[in-house]
């Protein structure tokens, strides 16, 4: 074996071996330190950015839900005027945003929502059962015209207003027309005393649902008749642009109804409406909000139009 002590020239093998081992260990330690630094600074930061991005998207969904709930609340509480609706909706969103931001601050984030605009609408309703005529007793009348969108439309027939069964020509109908295309719904009485809901979407009358007795609820929002799905209730697929909603032969049944349109010009001064019959009140049809979210790595801002009942936006 070679001697370890330095001696004659050329006797350097041991020194080279030791030096090689030392350099190898040095490189391994350097690699470990580099690994720790890179992981902490880059990879962990990337995970934080992904988490914050997901939190921003969740905040958007939560803001849409909160806005929808607030629109429903102010439509119930503050429907004296469109100005009052706007003010109360704006204040309500401000309260929600302030409280939401308080929670976000605990995680080093900022989250807010602000009202950017509203679509004024009108709520038409007859909450107490009576026949489906207008306030003056006219059996065929237009509930609302110059409408481009309707939501929360529900109708419930609670009783017969005529002694004899009616047929397709003289039974109660709902007609929705844009001047070119017309969608119609009729509630017939069959020979065996049952109540049959028929829909004509332009291709002829089709049976939707038949019930044995009243009350007969029709939910246009969810597309159901007496709880059973009826896809042809989606009249928005037939009419386009401005349309009018009318009742025909409204003196054949008693019932209640409610709908909210995006025409904000209807008022109780019109002879169609009266405190004892169908009434109208100002409402918010839709709201546009600005959603913001900020964290150390993510800044998010978006504008969303919220139509309550249209899903999560």
């Amino acid at each position: 074996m070679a001697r370890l002590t330095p001696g004659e020239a050329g006797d350097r093998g041991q020194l080279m071996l030791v030096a090689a081992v030392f350099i190898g260990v040095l490189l391994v330690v350097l690699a470990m330190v580099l690994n720790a630094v890179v992981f902490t600074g880059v990879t962990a930061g990337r995970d934080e950015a992904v988490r914050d991005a997901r939190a921003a998207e969740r905040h958007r969904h939560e803001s849409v839900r909160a806005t929808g709930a607030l629109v429903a609340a102010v439509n119930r509480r503050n429907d004296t005027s469109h100005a009052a609706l706007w003010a109360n909706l704006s204040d309500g969103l401000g309260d929600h945003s302030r409280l939401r931001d308080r929670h976000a601050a605990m995680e080093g984030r900022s989250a807010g929502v602000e009202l950017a605009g509203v679509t004024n609408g009108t709520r038409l309703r007859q909450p107490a059962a009576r026949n489906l005529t207008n306030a003056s007793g006219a059996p065929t009348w237009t509930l609302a015209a110059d409408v481009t969108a309707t939501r929360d439309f529900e109708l419930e027939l609670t009783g017969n207003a005529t002694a004899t069964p009616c047929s397709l020509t003289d039974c109660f109908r709902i007609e929705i027309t844009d001047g070119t295309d017309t969608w119609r719904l009729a509630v017939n009485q069959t020979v065996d005393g049952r109540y049959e809901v028929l829909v004509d979407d332009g291709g002829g009358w089709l049976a939707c649902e038949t019930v044995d007795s009243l009350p007969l609820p029709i939910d246009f929002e969810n597309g159901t008749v007496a709880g059973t799905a009826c896809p042809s209730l989606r009249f928005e697929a037939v009419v386009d642009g401005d349309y009018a909603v009318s009742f025909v032969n409204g003196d054949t049944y008693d019932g209640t109804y409610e709908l909210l349109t995006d025409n904000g010009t209807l008022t109780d001064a019109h002879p169609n409406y009266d405190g004892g019959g169908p009434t109208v009140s100002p409402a918010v049809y839709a709201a546009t909000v600005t959603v913001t979210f900020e964290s150390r790595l993510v800044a998010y801002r978006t504008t969303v139009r919220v139509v309550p009942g249209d899903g999560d936006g």
Partner: protein
Amino acid sequence: MTARGQAYTLEAILAALVLIGSVAFALGATGVTPLSGTTASEEATDRLSGLVEGTLDAAAANGSLKPTVLYWNGSEKRFHGAERAHYVSRAPPTAFGRLLARTLGDRSVAFNVNVYYVTAGGNRTVQPLVSHGTPGDDAVRATRVVGLSDGDRVRAADGTAGATLADAGGFYAPNAAPDGPVYNVVVVEVIAWHV
């Protein structure tokens, strides 16, 4: 000296091999990974995090989160049927509680649920809902925001709607915005860990 030439050559070759080997090892070690923990434990934590997030997403989507937050007995100052003000080692008897028990409990995962709310003074405080003890080292956390309005109704023990928040007394969260329809904004936090 010439008699030692072979030994010197072998030593030099050995040194070169050690040097090259250490360089190759160092280059291979530059794959960036955390120094502590194993890949398997990371995957388990990621799976648990996804499970908790998905459970909360499902609860928020089907509307079962808010009724649980409102499942409060104002006269007894506790959640209905709870061992203390909160449930100890069990989920609440609500749809959200059953979802938690089915999703997490069946997988040997313990969880704590807390409800954070804002006080009238603007501070943030917590009302525990479920406690299974101190979370483990591998605990994951997920939150969801629930907005409460004046018209929301507290729930009775059988789940039916009771008085509105504006009228009910003794609810754990105060009306943090008394001038408008907003009552409070709470954050539901779920902390889960493997047992």
